[in-house]
């Protein structure tokens, strides 16, 4: 990196706010995905004014900038694909205002999701999006990726809970958008910027909606000897017009991996379990839990367990939310996919995933948000073997193609990032992508903000290239000054 730029960053921010030693850079070359890309430096702004300065400097030096929260993302969104400056929001982690009366909060982007929840729980409120990584991931990251989570089935994803943003544009302006409700005059810019994966602006402040904590919660664990029984249960719950707060499925392979570590009480000999939660008024919850229990048994659940207290409930959820950690015990590297299908297509899709896995020599575990058809197949592979990596990716691609055939989408909550840019043409036409590019270029004209994300780089319509295994130093070499990254 340009020594001059580094020196200027240090002068503006202080030397304790800039990292550039090789051992520091190593820590920022990865996130929760299987991607790798090394930045040239990491900066830690404390204020929006700092961010404005960083962006101005980066523009002057034509250096890419990438925003980063906790780095828990699963699609490479917070990686510096073309090198450059990572703007870490770790020090902008203050909750600025909690407005209990109006059920909203104003936070800096580096506030951890779980910290916000803890801070508002005393008032009987919560921030509804609850990604599995919520103990680490930040609200800024949630906003960039439009994060989901198990309870988004009833509560919606991040975009449904953001009222306003303060942002630094790639062109350097500090701007506020949105306001006190979602339908103020003008275009719904919040709707565009939330989920734009850090390619349109760096968010420096977020006004979020808070939601009342439910009066009553019931958590059910339904145990199946057949995977089809579990998937058919999900289809029928939806068809009967019951919307649980969450409806998660773990297949036998995954629940055994989880149980060995978490001891959540998942029966080891079962083919699948459903973790279903209903919440709301006491009177409604009782009835819904009864109805759901009945549907489970109708579809062959051999046991339906209801968590007796908060401790049992927490244990079941611990099993779900720590599942990926548990898988990490079995294999040093694994690939979590994120596809969506219409919920009615769950039974045949799971059968197809199983078939695709067998065909490619992988045992694929499934743990996912069954209620909204958001799949997370887990493929274990050995990262030391490039051939295995390529096979894992092509297996994942085959699954995503099937999701699209079913009328689904390439990502439900993890984002496109640098993981799925090449799959975008499976879902979108040249005209669709051209418009999205025009919108990106309208805000990010020099392409310096988070380059190499979302948009396919390959030419030709519908062409999907096979991706090579990420290697240190392949995709992250710093482009020459003046190069257009767009």
């Amino acid at each position, binding site marked *: 990196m340009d020594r001059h730029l580094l020196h200027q960053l240090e002068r503006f921010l202080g030397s304790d706010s800039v990292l550039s030693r090789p051992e520091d850079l190593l820590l920022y070359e990865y996130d929760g995905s299987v991607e790798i890309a090394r930045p040239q430096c990491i900066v830690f702004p404390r204020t929006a004014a700092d961010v404005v300065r960083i962006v101005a400097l980066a523009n002057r030096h034509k250096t890419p900038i990438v925003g980063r929260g906790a780095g828990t993302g699963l699609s490479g969104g917070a990686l510096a694909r073309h090198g450059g400056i990572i703007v870490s929001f770790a020090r902008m982690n203050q909750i600025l205002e909690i407005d209990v009366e109006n059920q909203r909060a104003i936070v800096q982007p580096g506030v951890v999701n779980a910290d916000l929840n803890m801070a508002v729980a005393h008032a009987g409120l919560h921030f509804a999006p609850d990604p599995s990584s919520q103990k680490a991931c930040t609200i800024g990251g949630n906003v960039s990726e439009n994060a989901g989570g198990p309870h988004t089935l009833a509560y919606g994803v991040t975009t449904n809970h953001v009222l306003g943003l303060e942002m630094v544009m790639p062109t350097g302006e500090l701007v506020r958008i949105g306001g006190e409700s979602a339908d103020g005059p003008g275009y719904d810019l919040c709707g565009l910027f939330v989920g734009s994966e850090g390619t349109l602006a760096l968010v420096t402040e977020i006004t979020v909606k808070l939601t009342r904590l439910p009066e009553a919660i019931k958590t059910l664990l339904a145990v199946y000897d057949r995977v089809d029984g579990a998937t058919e249960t999900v289809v029928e719950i939806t068809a009967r017009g019951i919307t649980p707060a969450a409806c998660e499925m773990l297949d036998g392979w995954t629940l055994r991996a989880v149980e060995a570590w978490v001891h959540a009480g998942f029966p080891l000999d079962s083919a699948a379990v459903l973790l279903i939660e209903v919440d709301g*008024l006491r009177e409604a919850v009782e009835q819904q839990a009864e109805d759901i229990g009945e549907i489970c048994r109708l579809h062959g659940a051999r046991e339906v367990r209801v968590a007796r207290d908060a401790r049992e409930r927490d244990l079941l959820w611990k099993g779900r939310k720590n599942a990926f950690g548990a898988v990490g015990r079995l294999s040093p590297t694994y690939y979590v996919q994120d596809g969506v299908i219409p919920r009615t297509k769950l039974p045949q899709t799971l059968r197809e995933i199983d078939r695709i896995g067998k065909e490619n020599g992988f045992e694929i575990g499934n743990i996912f948000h069954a209620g909204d058809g958001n799949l997370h197949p887990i493929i274990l592979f050995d990262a030391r073997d490039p051939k295995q990596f390529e096979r894992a990716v092509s297996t994942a691609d085959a699954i995503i193609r099937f999701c699209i055939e079913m009328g689904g989408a390439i990502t439900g909550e993890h984002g496109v990032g640098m993981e799925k840019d090449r799959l975008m043409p499976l879902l979108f036409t040249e005209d669709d992508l051209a*418009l999205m590019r025009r919108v990106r270029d309208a805000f990010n004209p020099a392409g310096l903000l988070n380059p190499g994300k979302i948009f396919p780089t390959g030419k030709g319509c519908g062409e999907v290239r096979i991706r090579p295994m990420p290697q240190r130093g392949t995709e992250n070499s710093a482009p020459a000054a003046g190069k257009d990254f767009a």
Partner: protein
Amino acid sequence: MSSPAKAMPSRIGDIVGAANVTDDPRELAQYDVDRVRPSAAARPGTAEEISELVKLAAAEKFAVIPTGARTKLDIGMPPARYDLAVDMTRLDRVISYDPGDLTSSVEAGIPLAKLAATLAQHKQFLPLSVLFYDRATVGGTLSSGVDSPLRQAYGTARDFVLGMEFVTGDGALAKSGGRVVKNVSGYDLHKLMLGAIGSLGIITRVNFKTFPLPAESRGWLAVFSRHEDAFGFAQSIRKSPLAPHTLDIFDRQASVLFHTSAQLDKSDWGVAVSAAGNEKVMERCSRDLQAMARAANASAFSVLDEPRRSELWQRIREFPALSAEHSPDALIIKVNSLPARMGEVSQKLRSIAAISGLPFAAIARGSGVVYFALLPAERGAPAMARIAPCAREIFSVAASSKRHATIPWCPPELKREINIWGAPREDFPLMQRVKQAFDPHNIFAPGRFVGGL
């Protein structure tokens, strides 16, 4: 005024068929927007035809406004240019409906009521209980950005529109989102089309999340003589676990416009609540609401039986239309406020109106949006002379408290003096960039939107 579209009917006819194009001034009158008449109107039958129409418009630089049931064309500033009306009512099909998935994809010209009938067969619905419900189309409803009392429980359209297909300013047929309930693939461009009054493109298809119709629902009305108590009651409901489906607060003048048996007399404020759930849930709501109403000094509290209940909610929904029926030169202001500030906002609006001696009526949604109607008894110039200064005062008060205020409905003459969108804010340059990306030739509803977009 000579218009480039004048010579176009034959070329438009080549695209949509001669029977589906008109340049007859009498027929065109129905497409007037703020008394500006287009030179032609086309009734395309497919998205591809719309794409061709827009390509023609882009090449010839004529201005296009898409229309549905034409119930809300007066929302917005008068068009700077207006050559071609694209009448969407032939695109009125349900393309797909999967009750098991609770999703449906429809053409934009479909009337809400027609879609509702399809969904009702499977005991489902779309929570768009909006103004002009009996005639309004999906496309017009989404483009105009009107909200529904059901936003209390279901949010606004942005919360349940899953994806869209639309024609942009270069005639390209583009889409964003998808047909599944959870999806983060690509930019959510469809959200920009909501409330954009056709300034970015023509919506051709919309994918919705649908919802199960509640098996049982009930309504209640509490009456208060002090506004603090009425808004306090609403706030206590928001803080309770009850999660009502609708929560609307209205003043006595609004109840007069309603012409229902729920008319308030000497009391000033009514709070109408509805909730859904099983019998036990309904009993619980009844009990808790009554206790909260009593604690808030309600002078009356009642369960609204049918048909009183449907009647009252229909009137609440149609409030802007009722205001205009009562007073043809009515002006309606929409203020986006914070829920806990609604009482204060509506009192301020009432005091401004009272000083000018104008009759008024107010409705506030529990989620924080206030609709305030000025109802001049006069018509024409005398009415204008009274409402214009009042509207200016309201805008200046809104600006000083950083509230968003707009005037969705007012006499067209007022728009010569006042920009109904209020002054552009700091996010306006971003909106200009959006407009440029979608509509580079500025052919969609030019001049009608915020800041002259």
